[in-house]
Each structure stands twice: as C-alpha cells, then as structure tokens.
C-alpha cells in the first residue's frame, strides 16, 4: 500500500518539476514557433550553478533557496543573451533558429563537462525539509511535498500573470496572432526576449529544485529535453493547462514505468504520445493558451 502511495507522490513531484520545465518551453514555442532545444541545458546549468553557489563558489555559502533563485536569474540572463545575440539574427528563419539552439545545447553540455567534471554532484535536501510527514499509516517525504507545493504556486502565478496582467495579455496576443499584435503596437520582438528569459529562468529553477531528487550529472540535459518534448506533444504547444496536464501524465507514466517495467521506462512514454498524435495531433489542449 505505502509502495503505491510513495510512487504516486513521486510521480506528482516529478510532474511538478516537469511542469516548471515545460511551461517555459511551451510558452516559447507558442510565441516564437520554435522548440527551444537548449531547454534541457538550461535545466542542467541551473542545477550546476545552484550547486556551486550552495558549496561556496562565490566565497559565501548561500542558503538553498537563495542559490536556486540566483542560479535561475543567471540562467534567465543567459537565455536573454542567447535570444538577443543569436536567435535575433535569424528572425523569421525557424529552421535555422532550431538548429542554432541544437548547436548551443551541445556547446553548453561540453562546457559543463569541462567546468564541473564528469562525476555526478549530489545536492543535500535543504535544512528543515529532511523529514517525513505522517498521516495515519502513510509516510510522505517532506521535500517532495514542498516541490509539489512550489509547482502549484508557480502554476497559479503563471496563470495569474498570463490572465490578469498587461504583460500576460500581450503574450497571449503574440501567441494568438503575432502580426496582428505588432499592428496594434505590441513590441513582439521584445516579448520574445522576455518570454525566452522567463522560460530559461523557470527551467534553471526547476533544475536546482530537482537536484536533491535527481542529482546533477552530465547528460541530465538530454534526459530532460525529451520529457519536455513529450509533455508538449501531449499537452499541445503554447498552452499552460496543456503543459500542466501533460506534465502530470508524463510524471505518472515515467515513474510507474520505471518501477514496474524498468527496462522499458522510456518506451512506455511512447504509448500516450502515439495515442495523442493519432487521435488529436494538435495535443490535448492545443490551440488554447491557458
């Protein structure tokens, strides 16, 4: 009984991490019409930077949460730079933009290998969240509950941002019809930079939040990127609700698959993807932004 319960908690936790990763991916895709293939790298760089800040790279030992936020901001800055310096030069050439993100992801992976070495780095669970919550006979690891809470808070925050703020309205307009948005005076190219930085920052934050669970290792980027792709193929591109539902589905399938069919864990992801592609190629919530 507790095995299934723990597996469920793990699935929801992983789903939450995937949501943080894929929400930005989906928004970038919705707005700029390109899959950002550096998104897995952003996740990994966020985790590496955070772990270095945690272990005193800057001369002071930062608190876990401060490290996560600072790491995320650095990754967001990297994302903004990449958008400004590289993708902007290729405006309108989607294929070229995708290939550039692919090239950059290889460079980033190799630079991380150079900088942090090949050994996995384990990140300690933040102080105070080491324990368990008991509810009757069931036991819930505290940190995983915290990750679920963070993911829910971010989901609500993103939803409010998109639904209730001026920036959100501009992003929705840009996703819906970029030309029309330009005509009514929205600086869509500026939105590109903002959304790219936001997505990169979210991915970097997710990397650090996930580090106590997944640890940080070379190849983490290539483990996460396909999952984000599957989430977006399932949920539909440019849709926040789609990434949320897709993340939870993928979280469950991946964790249950790993526990029950360890050899085929990656392959079982294939099944929902096939079903969605055959029955609803635009994704479960394709065409809706929220």
């Amino acid at each position, binding site marked *: 009984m507790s095995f299934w319960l723990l597996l469920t908690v793990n699935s929801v936790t992983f789903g939450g991490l995937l949501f943080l990763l894929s929400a930005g991916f989906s928004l970038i895709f919705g707005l700029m*019409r*390109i*899959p950002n*293939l550096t998104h897995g790298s952003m996740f990994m760089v966020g985790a590496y930077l955070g772990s270095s800040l945690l272990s005193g790279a800057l001369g002071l030992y930062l608190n876990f949460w401060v490290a996560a936020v600072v790491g995320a901001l650095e990754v967001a800055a990297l994302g903004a730079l990449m958008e400004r310096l*590289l993708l902007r*030069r*290729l405006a309108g*050439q*989607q*294929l*070229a933009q*995708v*290939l*550039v993100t*692919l*090239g*950059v*992801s*290889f*460079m*980033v*992976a*190799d*630079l991380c290998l*150079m900088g942090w070495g090949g050994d996995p780095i384990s990140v300690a669970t933040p102080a105070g969240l080491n324990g368990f919550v008991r509810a009757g006979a069931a036991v819930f690891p505290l940190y995983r509950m915290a990750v679920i809470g963070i993911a829910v808070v971010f989901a609500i925050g993103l939803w409010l941002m998109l639904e209730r703020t001026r920036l959100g309205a501009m992003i929705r307009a840009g996703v819906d019809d970029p030309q029309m948005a330009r005509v009514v005076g929205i600086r869509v190219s500026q939105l590109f930079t903002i959304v790219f930085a936001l997505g990169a920052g979210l991915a970097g934050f997710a990397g650090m939040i996930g580090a106590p669970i997944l640890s940080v290792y070379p190849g983490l980027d*290539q483990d996460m*990127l*396909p999952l984000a*792709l*599957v989430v*977006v*193929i399932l949920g539909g*591109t440019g849709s926040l609700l789609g990434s949320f539902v897709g993340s939870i589905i993928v979280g469950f399938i991946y964790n249950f698959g790993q526990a029950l069919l*360890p*050899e*085929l*864990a*990656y*392959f079982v*992801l*294939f099944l929902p*993807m*096939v079903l969605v*592609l*055959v029955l609803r*190629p635009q994704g479960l919530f394709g065409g809706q932004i929220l």
Partner: protein
Amino acid sequence: MNIRHIAIAVAVLALIAVPYVINQPYYVNIASQILLYAVFALGLNILVGYGGLVSLGHAGLSGSAAYAVAYLLAAGHGHIVAIAGGLAAGLVVTAGFAALALRATGISFIMITLALGEIIWGLAYRWISITNGDNGISVSSRPAPFGLALDSANAFYDATLIVFLLAVAACAIFVRSPFGAALTGTRDQPRRMNALGFHVWMIRFWAFMFSGLLSSIAGVLFIYYYEFISPPALALTSSAEVLLMVISGGAGTLLGPVVGASLVVIIRLVVSAYISRWNFMLGAIFVAIVVFMPEGLVPGTVRLARAAWREAERRNLLSRAAATSTGPKS
C-alpha cells in the same frame, strides 16, 4: 560522352584507387568511415533536401538496424539472416517513425522525430536483456560475400565503396524520377500538389521509407565497420552529426551530403586527436554554418564561383567594349 560522364568516370576511378594510393590501413579505414557516413547522409538528404522534412531522429533508424544485426549475430545466426533482419528492423522502425511524425510537418516534425529518436535511444540504454545496456554488443566477424573476406581495411573499403556507389546511383535515379519530382513538389507547394491529385502523405511516407532504407544500410555498414554498437551511437548527438553533414554540404544536392560527410568525419578525427572537445566543436560548427552559410558548402561555393565567373565575364565585356568604342574614333 559529355564532360559530366567523364567527371563521373574520373571520380569513380579515383575512389577505386584510394586504398592503393594511400596504402595505410588507418587512412583506408577513415576513407571507409567517410563512405559509410556518406550513405547515411544521402539517406537523410532525401527527406531533408528533397522532402523539406528535417529529421532529428535518424540515428534511431540506423541504430535499430545495427542493433538488430548485432543481436542476431550474437544469437548465433549467419550473416545473411543478420543483414536481412537488420534491414527489416530498420524499415519497421522507419515505418513507425513515418506514421507518427508525418502527422505534422515543419517544426513539429522535428520535435516528434527528436522525441522518437530519444525513445529508441532509451530502449537501447535500458532494455538490457536485449541490448546489453551501456556495455553494448560486440560483433566478432565480418561477412565474406562470394568467399571474399572483408577483414582487411582494403577489402572493407571496396565493399563499402560498392554500397556507396549503388546508393549514389539510387539517389540520382530517385531524384530524376517522377516520384522524386513529386516529392520536391510536396516540399515547395503541398497544397497545390494536393489539388493536382497527388497523395501528399503517401509520397512523403515512401520518401521516408527510402530514406530509412539507406539509413539502415548505413547502420549495417556501421556495425560491421566498428564491430561494436552501444547506446551513444543512437543519441541525439549522432542524429545531429548526420544532419550537420547534410546541411553543411548542402541539402537538396547529390554531392552535398558526400562533401559534408567527408568534412565532418575529418574534422572529428582531427579534433579528437588533439583535444577531447568534439561535442563543443560540433555545436560551434553547427551554429557557424547556420549563421554564415545556411545553404551549405556545395551550393555556397557554386554561388560564389558563378558570381566570380559573371564578374570576370562582365569585366571582359567592358574592356572589349572600351576597346571597340575607342577604336573607330581614333
């Protein structure tokens, strides 16, 4: 017999002469490697160059074929069964890829092929009872067609060359065939082709199958060349490498993928001899090619040469005109 035929004959003779000229197993092996990657790149080029469908999962196709060959050989079957099984496995996986990825075109097509390729990689990595996981599978012998052993570098080069020439010929015939023209049509004007009564999906599907067949053949050559296969051969990096060969050489040309394959294989060898940072170089070359020479080396060079030729001709005409116009007056 025009100049094109002579050029082709000279090129083929030069390729046959390669092992006798360099005559060192290490370099002959590099030449074989270039040819086998050229077959792979030719296969991807059918889809990327002529179909306008960019795939980032092709290493999954050649990898499936290679793994099937290795698995069948390890299970004690002969080479003929193994090669037939390898090609069949590659084609079955290709059909699955095509059926799913062709639900979309453009950027979504890239995303789906990437995800499918990574799933095949995940299978190779995790399905340990079949693939032996990270340790990979070794193959202990090469086949001996018609009693000719392929163990020496020269013999393997000759076999690869024959396969390569057949692949080039097949691509040349394909491109000139009505089917090839229809494929180019679906790339440029899918809706018009549809209105003209062509089954766009079906054309793309069979182009994908042809591309998968060439990739599977490259996979079979791969497993016999290295006599070993492990999951990194199926990773995204491998798919990207082949795509780089196609794009750097020039997608949609026959010669481009061959030039690109030579370029990438040689750079990879040179780079890994001095520094262990091949992935960084791969990424950097990718970015540089896309930003500075997006049409590829072959069309890019042709464009530059044509421009230079025209410039020279214009100068020539101008000076002649100047000579004739000054002539009568003086």
